């Protein structure tokens, strides 16, 4: 009797596994024809410059992929063109219809007509449910990767689904579906082993609705410009309205995690005996960036604080080392000279509201293709102490003039020397 019981248990477990395997297999077999490899071809050489995955929607002639897969063809249509490669090795032209750079999505027109098409899941999945990510990693062929839905990424300004499963390069733009085959998210990024990120399907629905309402924009650059301006406006409204929490930092106070999506870390060399200059540093950032092209990214915020003190150093020695600490400041986003103007800087000793003096540097550069957007950089070094100083520094990318100035004002007032 007992052996029969065990036998049944083993049998039932096997049955359950088979059912699950069957459903993944069926899913793949059913939807594989609706997956296309998206290729960006360089006109001059005819060779592919980059690849990604796209999937055909149930709406007629529409394909979805990541904006970052097709960005070069959007921004430089005279240099690149788009092509798809289907499972049956058929090829055809693609044409971008609408983009959402904030959520890294692109809607593309295709003449490819598969038997099966993808529908968007309107319901939010339950935490822990199994999802299947589809795509073509490293040009190795279409594959299916099972993983788990783990809710929205905490502390991120741009909503992203945390998917515990391997999303590899080349799978970008592929769909992640639930057991019923409906699209829950779009593969967008990976943070290493089994840690993948998806754009929620709601963002796709919104893009689709906007396209159906407004049609193809005349000029993608002004569409992207509008999206960037809106996004930074929302982000900075939240930051500027927040009541900034300050934390003790050496002899002063500096802003801490001012909004949930700005995270802070710290480090110091105080334990090390050899260096006579003690350094305590804190970094805060909103490190999710918006991809614009292969060499141009934006949308980041970074704040950095350093408390330097050299109780055994002569003031001249201390200030010499202090200067070496501030003489290089870099923007924290990538940009080429076709994308941005050179930085213009001002550097003056400023008497702050509390009466303290600080050497203050403010630099700004404009985006060439997007009117009204700038990268800004600020750095202030306190001057009124002989053997110690606080450096406060921030960089903003893709920000309007008003927001940059308002942030700068709020930031400089927040850093206090007790």
């Amino acid at each position, binding site marked *: 009797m007992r052996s029969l019981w065990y036998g049944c248990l083993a049998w039932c477990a096997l049955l359950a596994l088979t059912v699950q395997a069957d459903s993944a297999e069926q899913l793949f077999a059913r939807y594989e024809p609706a997956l296309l490899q998206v290729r960006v071809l360089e006109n001059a050489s005819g060779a592919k410059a980059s690849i990604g995955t796209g999937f055909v929607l149930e709406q007629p002639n529409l394909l979805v992929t990541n904006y970052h897969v097709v960005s070069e063809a959007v921004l430089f249509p005279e240099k690149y063109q788009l092509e798809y490669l289907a499972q049956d090795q058929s090829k055809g032209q693609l044409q971008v219809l609408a983009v959402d750079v904030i959520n890294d999505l692109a809607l593309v027109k295709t003449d490819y007509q598969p038997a099966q098409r993808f529908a968007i899941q309107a319901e939010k999945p339950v935490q822990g449910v199994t999802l299947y990510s589809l795509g073509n990693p490293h040009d190795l062929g279409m594959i299916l990767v099972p993983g788990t839905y783990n809710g929205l990424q905490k502390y991120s300004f741009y909503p992203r689904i945390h998917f515990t499963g391997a999303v590899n390069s080349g799978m970008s733009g592929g769909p992640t579906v639930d057991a019923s085959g409906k699209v829950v998210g779009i593969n967008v990024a990976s943070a290493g082993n089994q840690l993948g990120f998806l754009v929620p399907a709601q963002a796709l629905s919104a893009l689709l609705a906007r396209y159906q309402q407004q049609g193809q924009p005349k000029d993608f650059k002004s569409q992207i410009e509008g999206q960037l301006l809106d996004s930074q406006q929302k982000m900075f409204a939240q930051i500027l309205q927040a009541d900034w929490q300050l934390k003790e930092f050496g002899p002063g106070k500096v802003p801490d995690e001012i909004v949930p999506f700005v995270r802070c870390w710290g480090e110091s060399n105080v334990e090390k005996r*050899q*260096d*006579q200059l003690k350094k305590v540093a804190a970094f805060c950032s909103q490190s999710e960036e918006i991809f614009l092209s292969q060499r141009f990214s934006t949308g980041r915020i970074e704040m950095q604080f350093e408390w330097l003190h*050299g109780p055994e*150093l002569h003031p*001249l*020695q*201390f*200030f*010499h*080392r*202090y*200067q070496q600490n*501030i*003489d*290089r*400041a*870099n*923007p924290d986003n990538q*940009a*080429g*000279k*076709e994308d941005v*103007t*050179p*930085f*213009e*800087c*001002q*550097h*003056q*000793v*400023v*008497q*702050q*509201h509390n009466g303290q*003096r600080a*050497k203050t*540097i*403010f*630099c*700004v*550069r*404009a*985006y*060439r293709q997007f*009117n009204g957007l*700038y990268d800004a*950089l600020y*750095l202030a*070094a306190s*001057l*009124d102490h*002989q053997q110690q100083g606080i450096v406060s520094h921030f960089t903003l990318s893709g920000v309007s*003039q008003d927001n*940059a*100035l308002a942030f*700068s*004002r709020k930031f*400089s007032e927040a850093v206090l020397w007790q």
Partner: protein
Amino acid sequence: MAVIIEVLNKQHKVIERHKFAQHEVRLGRAYDNDVILYDRHVCPHHAKLWQNEQGQWQLQDLASLNGSFLEPAQPLQQAALVPSGQLCWLGEQPLRIYDDQHQVAPALPFNPLEQKLQSFGHWPLIISLLLLILLEELFRIWLNAPGQESGQWTRNLLNLPLLVLALALWPTALALWSKLNQHEARFLPQLGLTFAGISALALWQLLLSIVNFSLDGAAGVVWLQETGNVMLLALLLAANFYLALQFALWKKLALATGLALLLSLQNLGVGVFVDDSEQLMPRFDASLLPGSLYFNQPVAVDDFNRDSTALFEQVAAQRQQQP
């Protein structure tokens, strides 16, 4: 009328001067001559100078192997008149013949500038300047606050003698050049001048770093610093060349200025050839000194913000310009 015979070297500098009252002077390598010459191409009895009835001096070759010349490549066949001040050759040995009525140039007054420059060769001054340079170098090492454990002090101190030797190379080269050209070497004045120039450049940097900090790295300060550097360098080189070279004064000044500009331009030129990525980095003045060395009024926050606003307008205007 007495005759004066100058024995010259190949560069026509006088190495011996003889004066004879007699009417005949014999020249050659043999010891029984009146003027005994060394050159190996001169015969033992090469030529003689004699005075004719009119009191004029004549040169006569004594059938020498290599000949005597009043004009190059025209050996004398017979006795020829030698006017006062005439250059002539026995073989390759140049001589100049004068009579005692020959006019000499008026006396040169002392050159006060040259005397001043020479006074840089006094040992106490040289040592003081050297100490100043070493002090400046020690200050620089101290400013970087090397840790005592790592032996950085010792390493840096061991480099000091090398530095002094390197600094002495330039005056040595100048002195050698003078010596090769049969002039006074003047090594010590050149050494003193070089040390003085280097000290002045170091003090100028020190002064300008304070000025630069107080004026918030204004563009004019950089310009002033560069101009000062070129001028000090040109001044040093001009003094060096004044003592070492035998050119006309304007040539020395032009050479010194040109060289100083070339050296400074090379310094500036480095900035022109850096790659594009450097141009995308923000460039600002990061100079920091203790607050007590800031001799200026700090700006108010509102003024700073107003200037920031102006920067936005400036870069917005640059958007349409070609990168």
